[in-house]
């Protein structure tokens, strides 16, 4: 081994404490990078797996493909894998209580389809031959037909026809359609599954899905093919689809791409001129990075990058400091080496070698630590998520890419940390070393310490101040360290805050889990009884029954704030004869009491009065797409002000000239109206 490297190793061994601290620093920064990168990859893998589980492991479905054409799709070089299902036919479901769903839709699935479709078996097992049946649980719960595992049932397998056109699950039940019987067949029910998701069985589908086994060697005339693209294919999935669907990929490209979207969201092949109907499974496709809506994933990556950048910057400072100290302590040694003929390059290399040695020890330890932490975190997360959402496991995948990424980043971090120290060590002139004062350059200028320092800290403070002033480098390092740690603290907290704000915007924090809305109930009593039934159910913790009326006022009678006036002026709404419509919400006594308490008011004071919810954010768009934002209070009512308006219910006037008192103005909303941006008046009745 070269003598200089030997020297480094010896001095590292000698300064055990500092070496240890530096290694721990490197270890922690590597571990942090690994954890962040690992959690992101695991998170994405989890989402991917979750979506595959809930929406099925396919990216696109081609519907009703002629059997002889299947190979064209199967053998397409952009298709990675596929599975088949076959629409066997419809049959009447005797005794279905749901008049919109009088049928069962019999679908044959092969064994790979059984594994890849999002099937959750409730009871029993999957069918293994073409006379066994797996039925949807909603036949029992929704259709109220009492079928059980082991039952035998005979279906009159038929075509669903409207005139001559064959109908599918995408077509809702029409009065004019009829079934054309093909053959009768006896099935044995071997399993019951959860209702399929709405992509596979739309809400409006007239048949409950039942699965039987499909022998791929004995397909009918048509089959549905569910395919995953290759990585390359997923990137250009629109082009690939154009080719398969017989749409010219080059001619009017943009137009065809829109066609594909429309085809997937409801238009039929005949409207577009495509060979097949398709359904794109966006939940799964978006994870190939080409997503139609992959902004969540981009966001995840962006946050990851910001966090990693913060870690790297802070690590650079921490590790750099430790190198700087190590070099300062050995200034004399470097000068001496220089005096006996070590070149700058040799010395620089030597410091980098020190970084290399520390990295060789610190990085693998950091990776191990990071992987361990990831593993523990995934266990914790699994316990947490498992309690919140069923059937979700946080996937712990050994993040190989993340590890390589961490190693590179940690290496870069160390390199940048010790580069400046290496330069500084190389710059030490032998003469400075012999005198050992490289860090203190006597400028000739007098360093005066302010009197206050001497007064506050005595002679010690005076010396410390002069020391800092004369030894600029140390001074700078200390100040930079402080600045960096404060900056990191601020940036992390604001990042977290920002994240919360974004997620709050995306997922408004509803206070309720379930909303039941009965509109235009013919029998008011029946509606009331239904509400009562729900409210009294033992699983209901709290509820509010909300109703609303409209209140109209003359625009000129409304006390608007300046911002409110500006907004309505910009809308040209402040004209004579214009009316302003208030929404008067009643939330029921129970919720009203809770709401009043939250606002810090006394129920007795507030019970016959109203609360003004004044939370206002409006955008007025110009023709060029720019907009002006109006935000803040819309009204200028003070607590205790009276307000007069006419009440109207469903398109009829109930009362005019109602006067009531505003007890409070707030931005807080009662349960049931959290997401609403309209201004409301709330009362108990």
């Amino acid at each position, binding site marked *: 081994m*070269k*003598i200089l490297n030997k*020297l480094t190793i010896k001095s590292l061994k000698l300064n055990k404490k500092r070496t240890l601290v530096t290694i721990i620093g490197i270890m922690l920064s590597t571990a942090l990078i690994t954890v962040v990168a690992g959690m992101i990859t695991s998170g994405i893998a989890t989402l991917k797996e979750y979506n595959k589980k809930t929406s099925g492991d396919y990216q696109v479905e081609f519907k009703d493909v002629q059997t002889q054409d299947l190979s064209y799709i199967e053998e397409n070089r952009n298709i990675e894998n596929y599975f088949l299902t076959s629409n066997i036919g419809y049959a009447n479901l005797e005794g279905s209580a749901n008049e919109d769903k009088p049928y069962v839709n019999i679908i044959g699935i092969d064994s790979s389809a059984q594994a890849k479709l999002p099937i959750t078996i409730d009871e029993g097992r999957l069918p293994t031959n073409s006379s066994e049946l797996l039925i949807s649980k909603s036949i029992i719960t929704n259709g109220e037909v009492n079928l059980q595992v082991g039952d035998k049932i005979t279906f009159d397998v038929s075509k669903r026809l409207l005139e001559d056109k064959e109908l599918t699950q995408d077509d809702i039940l029409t009065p004019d359609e009829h079934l054309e019987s093909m053959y009768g067949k006896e099935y044995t029910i071997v399993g019951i599954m959860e209702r399929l998701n709405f992509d596979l069985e739309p809400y409006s589908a007239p048949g409950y899905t039942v699965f039987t086994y499909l022998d791929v060697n004995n397909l009918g005339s048509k089959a549905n093919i569910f395919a995953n693209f290759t990585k390359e294919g997923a990137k250009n999935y629109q082009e690939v689809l154009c080719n398969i669907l017989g749409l010219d990929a080059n001619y009017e490209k943009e137009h065809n791409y829109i066609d594909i979207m429309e085809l997937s969201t409801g238009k039929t092949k005949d409207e577009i001129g495509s060979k097949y109907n398709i359904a794109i499974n966006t939940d799964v496709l978006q994870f190939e990075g080409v997503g139609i809506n992959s902004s969540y994933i981009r966001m995840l990556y962006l946050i990851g990058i910001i966090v990693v950048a913060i870690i790297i910057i802070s690590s650079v400072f921490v590790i750099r400091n430790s190198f700087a100290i190590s070099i300062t302590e050995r200034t004399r040694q470097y000068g001496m080496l220089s005096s*006996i*003929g070590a070149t700058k*390059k040799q010395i620089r290399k030597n410091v980098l070698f020190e970084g290399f040695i520390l990295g060789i020890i610190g990085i693998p330890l950091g990776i191990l630590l990071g992987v361990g932490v990831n593993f523990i975190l995934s266990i914790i997360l699994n316990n947490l998520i498992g309690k919140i959402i069923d059937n979700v496991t946080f996937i712990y995948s050994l993040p190989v890419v993340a590890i390589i990424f961490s190693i590179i980043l940690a290496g870069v971090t160390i390199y940048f940390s010790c580069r400046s120290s290496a330069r500084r060590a190389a710059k030490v002139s032998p*003469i400075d070393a012999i005198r050992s004062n490289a860090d203190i350059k006597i400028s000739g200028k007098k360093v005066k310490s302010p009197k206050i320092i001497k007064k506050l800290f005595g002679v010690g403070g005076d010396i410390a101040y002069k020391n800092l002033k004369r030894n600029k480098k140390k001074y700078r390092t200390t100040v930079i360290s402080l600045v960096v740690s404060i900056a990191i603290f601020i940036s992390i907290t604001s990042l977290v805050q920002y994240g919360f704000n974004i997620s709050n915007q995306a997922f408004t924090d509803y206070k309720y889990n379930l909303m039941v809305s009965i509109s235009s109930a013919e029998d008011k009593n029946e509606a009331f009884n239904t509400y009562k039934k729900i409210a009294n159910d033992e699983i209901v913790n709290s509820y509010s029954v909300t109703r609303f009326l409209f209140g109209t006022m003359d625009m000129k009678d409304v006390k608007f704030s300046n911002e409110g006036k500006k907004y309505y002026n910009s809308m040209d709404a402040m004209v004579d004869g214009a009316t302003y419509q208030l929404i008067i919400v009643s939330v029921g006594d129970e919720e009203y009491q809770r709401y009043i308490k939250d606002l810090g008011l006394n129920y007795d004071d507030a019970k016959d009065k109203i609360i003004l919810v004044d939370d206002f954010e409006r955008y007025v768009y110009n023709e060029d797409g720019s907009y002006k934002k109006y935000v803040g209070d819309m009204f200028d009512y003070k607590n205790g002000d009276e307000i007069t308006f006419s009440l109207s219910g469903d398109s009829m006037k109930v009362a005019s000239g109602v006067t009531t008192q505003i007890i409070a103005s707030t931005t807080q909303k009662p349960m049931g109206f959290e997401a609403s941006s309209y201004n409301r008046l709330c009362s108990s009745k």
Partner: protein
Amino acid sequence: MEILRAENLTKKYGKGESEVIAVDNVSFSVEKGEFLAIVGSSGSGKSTLLHLLGGVDRPTSGKVYVDGKDIYSLNDDNLAIFRRRQVGIIYQFYNLIPILNVEENITLPCDLDGNKVDENRLNELLKSLGLENRRKHLPNELSGGQQQRVSIGRALINNPAIILADEPTGNLDSKSSEEIVELLKMTNKKYKQTIIMITHNLEIANQADRVLTIEDGRIIS
């Protein structure tokens, strides 16, 4: 034969009011195999002069020729290489590397050059320095005299053109001092080694072939 020549060497420190002229327009030359002593009081500029001669510190103006070559025309890295091959420096405070043992300290210039250490030369040196039994000792396990002998060994290992000794006996008792001077004289005779030694001890200086006296940065005799 002339091995070293200084021409109008000047070294200034600082600027303006605080300017100090440490070496003031010094010119002289040294013959190969000569043992030269430079004497002068503290602050007379003799150490600075030595550093200029050894290629350790760049002069403000003037030139130094070693073996006919202008050493300050070299860049920093080449100057460092020149130092390790052509110059052996002995310091008052030894400047040994505390975590390297005797043998490693002596062979350091060789190792820096990436050359294989000539075992015969090392053994011979250790023998003549009286350090055969101290090979694996660390500097702090040695006496001052012994440490200085190690630094002489380090100066000699690469067979340099000149040895520069900066008060080699300044930190030693009289017995050790004598030993060191004897050693230097011995290497001067045995290896025809050119030696330039700084001292303020006239008794030691008088054992040299020639004595230069320096005061206020100038040679006065």
